[in-house]
């Protein structure tokens, strides 16, 4: 069925809503990355198995939906029962039968599957009442966890493709761009360039052909926002791209997505097929003379392809090597044509801006960073998950109110944002509002939205080493400062972690960093020294502890630490078996002995000891 007018779209939406209303209950099984890893496929299969054997009145297999990431990955696999919003966490396959027999058949609640508030120790029935969800504002993630991403009717029911109808039949491209400008939305991919201005520039360039590209090559280690959106709500990305293509005058658009995200690729293909079938893509969309095709370009796994000029080369099937951008890609981009490049989250916001207006969007967030931002909140935090908050929310609110604070009651040390190009911020920066400019000023950056919380058991020099290693591997290797400079900088950080560096080395590292930034060709090199610079800026003491005292305060750098068993040891023998090198000996109820010669400092004993009997010195 082709939807070629706003009326038809509304009629279809009505139809979908009625169909949905017939489902008395909906069982949402989260298929986000975290829950997939935790085994949600088996959970879903078990539901299917049981449903095949047993009739459940009104509840049929149609009531079961595989949704995108619901958010609270920490507690996966998640099963949410709508319309009530009953939130079952850490569900095991063995408990599926109970859910069917008790909750679905009789409406009984299974207490032990409910979320437990770690502070009050009380069980919480509905997810809306869990702090993690309560404090969020979900715009880009609006449909995640609520729809089946493979079902276009689910999307249409929730105002899907309304902005396409509105824009194509009632607005000029210039009006669309003005609305986007008014919203103040800045690119969510990292740099934070105003999207409206980018679109206007692209439209203003004299050219017969223009392109729109969606960057879905989220390469940051520790980030899965864009992936979750592509997997869980692919149509929202397509819809944003259709609006953008109309605004700038593109006939073809591309989504650059990692091959390593097979589910994202699969759902996007499905979404494109469905959108075509219903006339949202292809010829004469909404009965107008606007036509558009969206193509999928599968990335080969290269972080540098986050750099626009490299990404465009990759779309063209070439090596993703950046070029100097004295002419911007918005003027001369894909196949040398004017090209608008925005990331997944930016496009997912566009339909809302069109439907509700730029003024509405700018009423959320701060003056210069409007709207919300999605983050993957991970690391040593209680509630690992996918979150979205208004710009301007403080780091403290994110980490403590939504994230539930530091895991195991440990002490906060730093929060890392912006991925490998970003930086680490210390405790006294926790009250900074999260927006593009504040984070940059503090020496980190927004990036695409990875947020990694670190506790006092993290070594900041080790963190710098980790990110530099990542960048050394991911540099394309074209220019000297990035290729050779980051390699040498990494070597010197390694030297610090081994206790072999001097203060003169530290100075050389700072000097080198300055000229890597100045001399590098693209953003990867220009921000490459950030992991070092931000850690040395806020945690210089820790560097000096490695250099002068030959100590690692975080207890991580193995050349500078040793494990010792103290007199709290009860002789429980729990640590003996995990030791991979048999360095621990001892009898039951007697203090165990650790052979320093054999010990490889792997930390296995430390991890299993229940009695705090192992010290890291």
């Amino acid at each position, binding site marked *: 069925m082709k939807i070629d007018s706003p009326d038809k779209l509304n009629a279809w939406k009505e139809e979908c809503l009625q169909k949905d209303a017939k489902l008395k209950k909906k069982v949402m099984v989260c298929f986000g990355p975290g829950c997939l890893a935790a085994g949600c496929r088996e959970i879903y299969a078990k539901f299917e198995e049981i449903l095949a054997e047993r009739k459940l009145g009104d509840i049929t297999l149609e009531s079961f939906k595989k949704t995108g990431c619901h958010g609270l990955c920490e507690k996966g696999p998640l099963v949410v029962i709508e319309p009530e919003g009953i939130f079952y966490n850490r569900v095991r396959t063995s408990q599926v039968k109970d859910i069917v027999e008790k909750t679905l058949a009789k409406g009984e609640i299974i207490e032990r599957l409910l979320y437990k508030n770690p502070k009050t120790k009380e069980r919480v029935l509905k997810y809306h009442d869990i702090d993690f969800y309560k404090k969020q504002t979900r715009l880009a993630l609006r449909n995640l966890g609520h729809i089946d991403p493979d079902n276009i009717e689910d999307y249409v029911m929730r105002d899907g493709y309304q902005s396409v109808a509105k824009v194509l039949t009632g607005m000029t491209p210039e009006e669309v761009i003005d609305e986007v400008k008014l919203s103040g939305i800045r690119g969510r991919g990292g740099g934070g360039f105003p999207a409206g201005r980018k679109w206007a520039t692209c439209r203003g360039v004299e050219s017969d052909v223009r392109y729109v590209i969606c960057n879905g090559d989220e390469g940051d280690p520790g980030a899965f926002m864009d992936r979750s959106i592509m997997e869980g709500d692919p149509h929202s990305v397509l819809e944003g791209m259709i609006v953008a293509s109309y605004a700038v005058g593109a006939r073809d658009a591309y989504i650059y997505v990692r091959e390593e995200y097979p589910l994202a690729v699969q759902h996007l293909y499905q979404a494109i097929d469905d959108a075509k079938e219903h006339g949202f893509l292809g010829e004469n969309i909404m009965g107008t003379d606007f036509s558009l095709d969206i193509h999928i370009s599968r990335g080969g796994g*290269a972080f*540098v392809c986050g750099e626009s000029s490299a990404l465009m080369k990759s779309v063209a099937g070439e*090596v993703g090597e950046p*070029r*100097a951008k*004295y002419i911007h890609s918005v003027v001369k981009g894909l196949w040398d044509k004017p090209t608008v490049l925005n990331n997944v989250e930016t496009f997912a916001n566009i339909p809302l801006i069109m439907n509700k207006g730029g003024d509405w969007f700018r009423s959320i967030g701060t003056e210069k960073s409007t709207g919300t931002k999605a983050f993957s909140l991970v690391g040593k935090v209680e509630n690992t998950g996918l979150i979205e908050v208004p710009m301007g929310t403080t780091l403290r609110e994110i980490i403590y109110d939504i994230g539930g604070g530091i895991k195991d009651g440990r002490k906060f040390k730093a929060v890392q944002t912006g991925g490998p190009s970003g930086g680490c911020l210390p405790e006294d920066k926790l009250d900074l509002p999260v927006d593009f400019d504040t984070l940059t000023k503090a020496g980190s950056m927004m990036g695409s939205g990875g947020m990694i919380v670190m506790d006092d058991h993290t070594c900041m020099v080790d963190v710098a080493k980790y990110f530099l290693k990542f960048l*050394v*591997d*991911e*540099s*394309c*290797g*074209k*220019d*000297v*400062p990035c*290729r*050779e*400079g980051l*390699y*040498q900088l990494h*070597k010197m950080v390694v030297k610090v972690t081994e206790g072999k560096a001097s203060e003169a080395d530290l100075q*050389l590292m700072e*000097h*080198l960093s300055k*000229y*890597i930034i*100045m*001399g*590098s*060709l693209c953003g990867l090199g220009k921000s490459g020294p950030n992991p070092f610079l931000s850690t040395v800026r806020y945690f210089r003491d820790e560097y000096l502890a490695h250099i002068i005292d030959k100590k690692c305060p975080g207890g991580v750098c193995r050349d500078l630490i040793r494990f010792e068993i103290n007199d709290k040891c009860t002789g429980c023998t729990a640590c003996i078996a995990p030791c991979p090198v048999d360095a621990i000996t001892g009898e039951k109820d007697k203090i165990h002995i650790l052979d320093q010669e054999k010990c490889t400092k792997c930390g296995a004993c430390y991890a299993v000891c229940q009695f705090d009997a192992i010290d890291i010195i």
Partner: protein
Amino acid sequence: MKIQINGRWYEAREGEMVLDVLRREGIDVPALCAHEAVEPYGACRLCMVEITHEDWGGWKGNVTSCLYPVEDKLIVQTHTEDIIELRKTVLNLLLARCPNSPEIQKLASEYGIDTTSFVPREDADNCIMCGLCTRVCTQMGFNAISVAGRGYGREIATPLKEAPPDCVGCLACVKICPTHHIQYEDIGTTREIWGRQFELVKCKQCGKALITREFADYLIENRDIPADYFDICDDCKRSGTARDFKKLVHWEEKEEAEEEVSA
């Protein structure tokens, strides 16, 4: 148009890069990856200069002069403190990569660096990864070699590290390499390069090896060169012309003598 370099004004032409003007005017700015035979690339970063303009409201920036197009009234500084420090850092890094390269040693020493502050590369060779060889190979239309891998492990390689099927043994890569890293060998009538052997075309007169058969065939086919062009080497062609010329002169002398006799 005019651009100002280090306080003096110079003529510049539309479409030129800043480095083109610097080189034409003999202003000493090092550049290892720029060569007039190929498109600019911006990899070595040595040719960076500081630019500004009276219309830019005081904004200054550092750019690679090989890639920056000239514009009227552009103001260029080639040796600011930061630019010199950057070049030193780059040369310091290159010296760690290629500690044995005389060319790098010389350039580094011009900037006051005799030993690298960094860890020298193990098994170092003299390749600075400027990419001139692969770019000239592409420019010639052969595409025999390319960059392989990425990051610090990036290297110049033949496809699958086998003898390159598309190589014609033209030696463009050898000649353009700024550190003389690419090796080849001509033994008798055989040339070996990139692990591949080529038969050399011999001059029909003196027997000297001229060019590889593959390259000769390529030029004859694609560059509108006569099929017999490589039968005789340039030297023999020249001496052949000389002989012909001599004959002509001698013939005139003969004529004159005969005339005298008849008179």
